[in-house]
């Protein structure tokens, strides 16, 4: 049984009287110790999916309209808010895209980590502080004994993200959800943070859901990848399969948009057009207005998900790799 098993997740956003679909029929599974990458452009629904898994949509304009999220055999969507909170921050933790603003500016980082520990573990404040110190050491913050009493504004973005990771690991979660954890960081710091996440995963034995718009990052640390476009998963496969046999035109477009660091290119092969807004109805396949392979059938019928090979699912009328 998978650690995390999402079936047909439907999310809708309240817009006036209407409920517009933002995530539709998303099914994902994450095994223990596995890393799943969810990739897509801004607004494709990947972050909302992450927030839905974590249980942070409550109080927002986004509603869960259907589906199930089974975590360690229990449907999280069926839990009471109290039961749900016992999972959050304990067996499941999350780090965010904005390290600069994700820590509370008025408390020392050590106290913020300690709060995460004491919420779920019975121990003295002294023990919790020692644990926080260990965590800071674990995420390789230099001079943790001094840093534990620093305020967030006294730290760099990379260090704050390390503190966020330390906080997320406070209770040794089985699942870490990382929503664009390196996007706001310098390239060199990005590498360090990814490296850190990978080593912590090996050490603690946890699964990771990594949300990213960057196929490069995903290819480096994920075991499998789901590509999302406009609220739906358009391609899903193991990382090696996906990169050797990309089938969805959108996935190919994403890969083409990565600037090469090996040689200079004048033009990036960016995907033409833009993601349609929520209230724009697109008949047929949501990607067809931007797709190089689109024809009449793409304009009229939305393709269903089909397996081009075992464990390689594509939502496209004309999957690329298999036919060529």
């Amino acid at each position, binding site marked *: 049984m998978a650690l995390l098993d999402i079936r047909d997740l439907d999310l809708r956003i309240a817009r006036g009287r209407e409920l517009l679909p933002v995530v539709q029929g998303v099914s994902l599974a994450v095994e223990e110790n596995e890393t799943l990458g969810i990739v897509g452009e801004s607004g494709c629904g990947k972050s909302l999916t992450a927030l839905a898994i974590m249980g*942070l949509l409550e109080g927002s304009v986004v509603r869960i309209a259907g589906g199930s999220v089974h975590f360690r055999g229990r449907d999280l969507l069926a839990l009471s808010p109290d039961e749900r909170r016992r999972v*959050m*921050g304990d067996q499941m933790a999350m780090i965010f895209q904005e390290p600069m*603003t*994700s820590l*509370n*500016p*008025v408390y020392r980082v050590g106290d913020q980590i300690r*709060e995460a520990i004491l919420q779920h573990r019975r121990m003295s404040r002294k023990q919790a502080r020692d644990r926080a110190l260990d965590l800071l050491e674990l995420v390789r913050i230099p001079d943790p004994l001094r840093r534990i009493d620093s305020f967030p504004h006294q730290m760099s973005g990379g260090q704050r993200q390390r503190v966020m990771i330390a*906080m997320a690991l406070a209770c040794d979660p089985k699942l870490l959800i990382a929503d664009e954890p390196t996007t706001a960081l310098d390239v060199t710091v990005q590498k360090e943070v990814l490296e850190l996440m990978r080593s912590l995963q090996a050490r603690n034995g946890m699964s990771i859901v990594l949300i990213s718009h960057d196929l490069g990052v995903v290819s480096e640390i994920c075991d499998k990848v789901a590509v999302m476009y406009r609220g739906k998963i358009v391609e899903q496969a193991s990382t090696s399969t996906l990169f050797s046999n990309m089938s969805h035109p959108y996935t190919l477009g994403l890969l083409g948009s990565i600037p090469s660091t090996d040689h200079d290119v004048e033009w990036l092969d960016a995907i033409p057009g833009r993601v349609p807004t929520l209230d724009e109805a697109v008949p047929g396949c949501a990607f067809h207005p931007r797709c190089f392979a689109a024809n009449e059938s793409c304009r009229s019928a939305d393709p269903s998900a089909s397996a081009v090979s075992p464990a390689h699912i594509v939502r496209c009328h004309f999957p690329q790799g298999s036919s060529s």
Partner: protein
Amino acid sequence: MLNYALNRVLTLVPTLLAASFLVFMFIHLIPGDPASILLGDTATPEEVAELSRELGLDEPLWTQYVLWLGNVLQGDLGTSVFFREPVLSVIADGAETSVLLATMTMFWIVVFGVPIGIISAIRHGSWVDQATSGGAMLFASVPTFWLGLYLILIFSVGLGWFPSSGFPSLADEGGASNLRYLVLPSLTLAAPNAALIIRLIRASMLDVSREDHVRTARAKGLHPVRVAIRHVFRNALIAVSAAFGFTFAALVSEAVVTETVFSLPGIGRLVVQSILRRDYPVIQGVILIIVVFYMAINLLVDLAYASLDPRVSLK
């Protein structure tokens, strides 16, 4: 921090000079002079001139100002024309009432305003929020003289729980129990001010609750009430602390209407009456002290900022 405070006290000097000069000149623009008001309608011009000379009012304005300033620098604010008492002791009498009244008012604001503000922020959009917001608007709009009179009608005349007017000093007979004279006026003053604090706390908590670090707090699995108090309110307090300071300052110096309704010998009423009596030394003295008081509150607000927000450092 100490350096900062010292610096601030030094900047007080030019501000005070400017304020005292302006006040001095403005007062003398008011038609009528203390001598003729003291002596009444029946006084002959000779008597008025005689008294003016006695009070030093026949000198040129510049000379009067410099003389006054010289005395102030030696700690002498002069003598009240009306009371024939040192200005300092006249102000001290009023200050006791005003500071106690303002303190009691702040007490009500904190006891009622803060929790209601927090609750309406936590339950924003619910009927609780609608009710408190509506109530706050109502209390913010009701004139204090109307509310004061109704409180007197109900709690003094009707129920006889509290006295309706006056305030004997705590040093007089009755001691601390004289504070009961301030209950109704402080409630009257608290109503509109608490309403504003409620709105302010609600608005700044809603602002803070949209910040990323609140999402982090929720992701830890904290109870929503803990998130609201420890994370949201604690940050909202930074913005609200300034309002507390200035509300207190205004309560001490500007509670004229309430002081009048309850016949309290406070600072606000002292200023207004002194202006009517053309009691120049008292007006000047009070305004000078109010300026110092406002600047002290300002300094306290800055110190509060620095202690509430670690990102602020005072230099």
